[in-house]
């Protein structure tokens, strides 16, 4: 039998556990206009999957986990995030 997980037990450092890549579920992705981002962090606080990362001069969703729900775009006070349909 070939195991997909090398672990014997379901506890490990986070990079070793076979995680659910929820980004697979997405049909639209948030695209950030970096020059418009005021770095208020509202998207970071309200992202249901907690996948928004601070990039230094703006915030950006990690697309491996972003489900494309669009909450960040809806809440962004300066309209810096646009949801773009993916094919």
């Amino acid at each position, binding site marked *: *039998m070939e195991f997909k*997980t090398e672990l014997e037990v*379901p*506890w490990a450092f986070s990079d070793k556990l076979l995680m659910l890549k929820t980004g697979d579920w997405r049909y639209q992705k948030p695209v950030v206009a970096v020059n418009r981002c005021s770095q208020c962090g509202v998207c970071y606080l309200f992202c249901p999957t907690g996948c928004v990362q601070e990039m230094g001069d703006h915030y950006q969703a990690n697309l491996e986990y972003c489900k494309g729900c669009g909450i960040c775009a809806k809440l962004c006070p300066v309209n810096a995030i646009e949801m773009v349909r993916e094919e």
Partner: protein
Amino acid sequence: MDNNKSSREIKVLDGNRAAAYGAMLCQPDVIAAYPITPQSEVVETLFNFKAQGLLNAELIEPESEHSSMGTLRGASIAGGRAFTATAAQGLLFMFENCIQVATQRLPIVMVNVCREVSGPHIVVCGHSDIMMVKEMGWIQLHAQSCQEILDLIVMAFKLAEDPQIRIPTVVCYDGWYLSHLWEPVEIPTRGEVEQFLPPLETGLKIDPKTPMVFGPLITSRPATEYRYKQSAAISRAKAKFDEIEQEFREIFGRGYGGQVEEYRTDDADIVLIAMGSCASTARVAIDKKREEGLKVGLIRIRMFRPFPRERLVTALKQRRAIGVIDRSVSFGWDGGNIFVELKAALYNSDINAPMLNFICGLCDSDVTTEIIERAIDIVGHAAQGKLCNEVTWLDIE
């Protein structure tokens, strides 16, 4: 071998105090337990040990058994050696966390003082509580004497914590018949136990700088793989237990035969199978029947989970009839739990001897030598080819 025998102390202890000594000698980091009859003296004695400075553990009395096991789950995840004790309703109240710690493969050791589950409201001996644990992924060991209770707890930590096993383990003994029976018990020295049981190394450490994940939400494929690995690990515990018992014998100078213990079975035509305190009563009955010329022997099950299928099949070859004594009922199966397990184990073996089941000792009924002799007589009839009832409730026959 056995160089330290002279420095070992012999004390007269009841089963509960013997259990507390066993736990204390293993120096757990955390003990979380809620008192319940007939287990209370285990907890009481451990608190006394702590007060006397004999025990370094963090002792916690939470608001319930459910919280006890929850506390130990956290303690074990943090890398600590964890111990608890319970009985009957308390055990049932723990169930959700019991299953969690088994699937998370946390090497917790628990004592269960076997007590009939209420209702009607009964606070007496029986195996109906511990039989509920057989599908929960715990290793289950059964003692027959106060000395064996202490010894099994020391062995249980070693078995549970083995890197190849990592399965929580419950040490069981009969309420009242053992928990409140006083016997001479040899107490191993702290040094000997340290030699036998190395410090626990789980590779676990709760540290915010290197965050870890425990029991995350995962998809079906890895979850199924973890189930498979858990199943394989608990099966490995059979051979490992025999190995550990051998090592125990080398250091402490006594042993019990590993998964099963045989008594006068060498030339036995008929064999009784029993578990727990009634097995020692069975020895007396067997000696008596042997004097009458009947070739009868005893197989005592010490490890109920994993079920010692291979050892039992080997031990039951060439017998003319088999009798199984059960102190619990598998409702809906019309037999006792050991009987049901054994029937499944013997399928596809070449054993075709008649096998009879005797249900007795439920709800605090004494399993007397007379009761066992009656069972032996019935098995004797079956060995002669007479047709007998498959299941007999001896106490209300």
